[in-house]
């Protein structure tokens, strides 16, 4: 494989082989889906009939029929993985767009299937006990099970109609559009096919030699085939715009085979062949695969008609973008290597990566990102504070300022960061208290003005705590005298701390000393 550019351009096989592979794997999946759906529908119908007539012997047969559901559904699920894989490779654009636009409906497939499978197991297990439990679980199971093909046909129908995508994105499913009738008929077509294949399966595998059961299943088969024709005709009209010769040939062949099948199954007096073989059985075994394969071919051909064109365009655009981005590959890889080499388990790295953008290399609050901030990043080189108080600030951030919370680091990392702060900036060192006699004017000023916010003891007042950002707790946090003086003189831009440069310098220095003395 060539080195990576854009992984969406990496095709495991030429497209034509992928399409053939999709045809085969989708066919396998669909076959078991139809058998599973048919079994569940017929099993529940027979249960209702037997239950109403109180026929417990017959019910044993219904139970045998539903027992096969476990194997059929398991294969239906597991065989679905193959086509899903191939569809995601060759129809990436259509598949991810269509399922994305119907995201929550699409996701509901998971709980619906689990519910359906478990409920049908319960239905089968309890069929011969009290009637209400199998009835309820049967209704829930079958209801959930029948919703799933509606979701799948909905997603596939949307995938094949790029024109409908914008409408879906705007949540405006126009009722007049061709999408809804197409979806409806397509869904009904799947249900009809499930009846046909389910009835045929049980005719051959579970009915045994019982002529009455055979007659009942033949009647379902006959009705199913007629229903398919009735639903198939309007369904064809909904895809008339992308019709091509391949589709026409496949549909004609399939319809002819279906007609021949209906003829072979036509209602006649119940007659038994003495050798135990099934009347019309050989015709069924020959014609059913023809119908199945031709309908599948028509479906795939319709899908490819739109999607392959779309997909080629998308790949061309992608190849262009990829060529354009090629020159950025080296810097991208360099950035990745750098990231891989950076281990965030030590204070130095955490400071460099998480704090430095704002606080700067020297801690002066002059990092490159700090230029964007209205409340300037603190000059942490001048901070002398209690370790636990700083931890609190690092963990909670400082509301009203740009300081974010850092609970993204566990306690050990925070500890190593705090150690680093102390090593680099002696952050937890003692407060430098200026040695000077503080005058009365400064004491009064503190009491009457500063204490409004900072509190008399340095613990922010109730009013101070309403501020964003709130003032620091000066009983646990101090700054070096020069930085204190700078804030008192110039204010703290972006906060309510205003400049007091009009005060005499001696008073300002007194205030610095008062603030420093507040730290416990």
């Amino acid at each position: 494989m060539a080195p990576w550019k854009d992984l969406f351009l990496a095709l495991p096989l030429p497209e034509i082989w992928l399409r053939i592979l999709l045809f085969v794997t989708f066919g396998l999946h669909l076959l078991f889906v139809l058998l599973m759906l048919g079994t569940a529908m017929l099993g529940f119908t027979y249960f209702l009939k037997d239950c109403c007539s109180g026929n417990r012997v017959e019910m044993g047969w219904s139970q045998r029929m539903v027992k096969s559901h476990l194997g059929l559904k398991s294969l239906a699920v597991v065989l679905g993985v193959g086509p899903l894989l191939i569809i995601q490779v060759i129809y990436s654009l259509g598949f991810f767009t269509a399922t994305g636009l119907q995201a929550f409906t699409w996701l509901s497939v998971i709980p619906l299937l689990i519910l359906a499978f478990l409920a049908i197991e319960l239905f089968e297990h309890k069929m011969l006990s009290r009637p209400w439990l199998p009835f309820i679980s049967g209704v829930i199971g079958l209801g959930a099970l029948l919703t799933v093909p509606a979701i799948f046909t909905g997603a596939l129908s949307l995938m094949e109609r790029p024109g409908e995508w914008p409408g879906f994105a705007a949540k405006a499913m126009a009722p007049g559009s061709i999408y809804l009738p197409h979806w409806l008929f397509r869904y009904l077509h799947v249900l009809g096919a499930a009846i046909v294949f389910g009835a045929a399966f049980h005719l051959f595998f579970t009915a045994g030699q019982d002529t009455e059961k055979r007659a009942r299943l033949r009647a379902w088969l006959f009705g199913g085939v007629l229903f398919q024709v009735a639903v198939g005709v309007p369904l064809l009209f909904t895809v008339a715009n992308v019709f091509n010769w391949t589709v026409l040939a496949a549909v004609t062949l399939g319809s002819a085979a279906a007609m021949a099948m209906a003829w072979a199954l036509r209602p006649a007096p119940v007659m038994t062949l003495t050798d135990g073989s099934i009347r019309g059985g050989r015709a069924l075994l020959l014609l059913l695969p023809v119908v199945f394969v031709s309908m599948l071919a028509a479906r795939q051909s319709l899908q490819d008609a739109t999607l392959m064109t779309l997909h080629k365009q998308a790949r061309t655009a992608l190849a262009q973008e990829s060529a354009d981005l090629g020159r950025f590959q080296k810097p991208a890889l360099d950035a990745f290597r750098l990231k891989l080499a950076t281990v965030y388990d030590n204070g130095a790295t955490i400071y460099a990566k998480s704090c430095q953008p704002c606080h700067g290399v020297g801690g002066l609050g002059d990092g490159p990102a700090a230029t964007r901030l209205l409340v300037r990043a603190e000059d942490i080189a001048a901070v002398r504070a209690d370790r636990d108080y700083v931890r609190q600030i690092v963990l909670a951030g400082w509301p009203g300022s740009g300081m974010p919370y850092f609970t993204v680091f566990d306690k050990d990392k925070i500890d190593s960061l705090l150690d680093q702060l102390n090593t680099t900036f002696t952050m937890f060192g003692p407060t430098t208290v200026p040695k000077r006699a503080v005058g009365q004017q400064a004491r009064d000023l503190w009491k009457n003005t500063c204490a409004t916010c900072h509190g008399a003891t340095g613990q922010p007042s109730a009013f101070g705590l309403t501020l964003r950002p709130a003032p620091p707790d000066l009983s646990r946090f101090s700054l070096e005298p020069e930085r204190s003086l700078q804030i008192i003189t110039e204010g703290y831009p972006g906060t309510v701390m205003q400049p007091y440069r009009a005060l005499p310098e001696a008073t300002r220095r007194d205030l610095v000393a008062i603030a420093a003395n507040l730290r416990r």
Partner: protein
Amino acid sequence: MTFPLIHVPVLGDGMTIALNAVLHVLISHGVAIGMTILIVIFQNLGATGRGSFWEETARTLLKPVVIVTTSVGAVTGVGIWFITGILAPEGIGSLIHLFFWPWFIEWWAFTTEVVLLLIYYFLWDRLAQRRPRLLMALGWGYVAVALSSAVLISGILGFMLTPDGWPSGGTFTQAYFNPTFVPQFMLRISAGIALGALLILGWTGWRFKGTANERGRVLRLTGLVMLAAMASTAVFAWIYFSRIPETYLTHWKFAVATSVWSQVPNLLPVLNGVAVACLALAALAGLLRQRRTAMLLFVPALILAVGMVAEFERVREFVRGPYLLPGYMYANQTRMVRQEAALQQVRPLLATLDWVNTTTDKAPAAQAGRALFDANCGVCHSIGGINDITVRLQGRTLESVNALTSITESMVPFMPPFNGTEEERLTMSTYLYSMANKNTLPRPQLQGEVK
């Protein structure tokens, strides 16, 4: 190629995947591998004349195993695909293109596995008496295929974490046979056997119908298997984690304990220790045929085992941040080359978003802001749900939100950088600021309040 961006409201993307994935892992490892291996061993013991109760036990256990694996296990397995296809189409789409063949081969292994399990189950009654050897062969055939299925998928899961040489060389073999390939599948298989043995241990304690001696023998064997599997799990877990790049691994405590609890340093080591001790004691109780002790320990051991599975998957998923595919794509599905291009040139993001959801917000600027948030942050953060961005940004000013979004990659090690122009970043920041401060009234702030 830009696909619709969908994020699950309230639950968030990560939790949606986790709920489905953990359920799948519990069943695929614990039931489909673990319990079935023991069932096959039991059947072998019965078939080789060690007592018919072995076979009866195996037969009783097989039915729920088949139902649970084919109904819940298989559907949640496909479900991981469905969910990632919706939430991270660029990511899963890239993986599927790169790993098409292992996935395709795995599909056949998976199909064979299911077919063999069904044959084993449906033919049991017919073969158990008449051809027990054939039934044994079928059972071991199933186990072999189930194990190979686990091996096949491990190459893909491991690549997402240890991109040893892959981004530079860009070859399939570098991606697939990454350093965690072997330890990961060995770890998964061993842990699966331990979990399966625990489930059978509990069942034997509570529900076994047979003589006390028979029950004791089942307990002893199950306990022995569980102890051995636990020892093997420990060894391979150690090798596995030692091969993950340290830069990712240091986030494991935060990944599991989240913001608040990651500040209690010994919480996780102690919890894990308690869990391992509880499991080991349960296994020991089985080995020593202590039925009542095993019964008592079963429920807490099971809860703790589920917790440990969830923990492992959470760590595995989380610690590769900020990458979805290391060296190739960021967690928000932005390819690294595109990010580099955006850094060096003006490359607007909005113009490339084809499917902007217009239903949530009416104002054009809000729509744009929301679309940019969805594309850049929505994979981890929600608005109003788990990891709510509005709570995270409450109290920050607009210009500080804008400053923070400019340094995401540097500020938090597992956050990807913003993809888009400076103007778009301001649009997004404005949107987030307004969302975060929608209902804020000035109120007294309490000291030490942790947001």
